């Protein structure tokens, strides 16, 4: 089975703030604030971490066991896809 490809939405920009990240969509002018550990996940994604390393790093940052880490990862990616922050390869946009 082919691995789904996720990419950050091309109009997204972000800045690191003391308590997390602030995201801006330059196309729609919408903003989001990401606290940790979601901010850390965004940072890992933006650095191009592959799935195994992503999961391992997120688990260590959030202090979660494997199943909880996977659930967090899945739920977060689904939410970000729905919000248009990241795009699944083959989807519109």
């Amino acid at each position, binding site marked *: 089975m082919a691995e789904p490809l996720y*990419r950050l939405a091309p109009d997204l920009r*972000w800045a*690191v703030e*003391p308590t997390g990240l602030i995201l801006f969509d330059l196309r729609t002018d*919408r903003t989001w604030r990401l606290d940790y550990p979601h901010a850390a996940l965004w940072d890992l994604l933006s650095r191009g971490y592959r799935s195994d390393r992503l999961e391992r790093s997120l688990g260590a940052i959030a202090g979660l066991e494997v199943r909880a880490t996977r659930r967090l990862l899945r739920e977060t990616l689904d939410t970000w896809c729905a919000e248009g922050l990241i795009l699944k390869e083959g989807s519109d946009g």
Partner: protein
Amino acid sequence: MANLSITADCNLRCRYCFARGSRRAAAAGDGPDAGMTVHRFRRLLDLLQRSGVTEARLVGGEPTLHPQFTALIDTVRDAGLKAVVFSNGLMPESALRCLTAVPADQVAVLVNALSPGHPRARDQQATLRRLGARATLGFNIDNATPVLGFLVERIVTLGLSPTLRLGLAHPVFGGANRYLHPRDYPTVGERILDLIGQATPAGVQIRCDCGFVPCMFPPGSAALLGLARDDLGHCGPIPDLLPDGSAIPCFPLARFRLAADDAGEVHAWRTRLRAALTPYRSLGLYRRCAACPERAAGRCSGGCLAAALRRLQAPSVLPLGDSPGFATVIDPENLR
């Protein structure tokens, strides 16, 4: 207030130029800044008058290079407005004659000073000498070690208006101009304090343009040395009205352009432009701005928004708008 950007043409190529993008677009013939028609200019003067504005602020490029510059100045005077011209001082003789013929209380020429080593510095000084008190000297700081010592002497010896306007070279959002990096602000702040120490005995007042922040000066020093509260901490762009009638908050934030419409009033433009910038205002110049008491108290906006926006990271290093996004692979097996 509003600036009327009457031409993108310029006879200098300053590396910090905020309007470089507009100049390039105009040169390519597809930009909105190719040159304002007299008809458009008159409509915008009407807009200023309706808005209760008493000054027509002409900017460029180099506004005196507009082919009908003298006619535009006449139009401003006919409208009963004061002409304020933002110039580099390298102007055609016809423009200089026109400006020197206008009574001094009806015109002001803000001349951006060239450093003493600049090949056109002598030409600029010749213009300043003729403008005299009509001219106010300005200087844009684009590096951490600016040479400022000559400015006060130039004002005094040439008999210029006893005010010196300092500007910081801000980055154009999505552009590539040279700018003063915010990490160098404190170093520049010390130089400015030295300059104030030199200017005060000479009777020259220092005014700061937008984007100066309190934290670039040692605590308390700015007020002690006479910098006005209004000089610091604000990023309240004065809208630039372009030849096609559209408006931008300022050239560094030219991305936030409003569609052409010269109906209504200036304050309505300003309100709409401010609203366009509002989503980004939470971002300060530095990461530490988020916890700054000056900002929390409303005494500082977090610096120039265009400079704050340079903190933004992008999915790739490609230019704004051309980014394909950064791809990463998630293995679905690991998500179950």
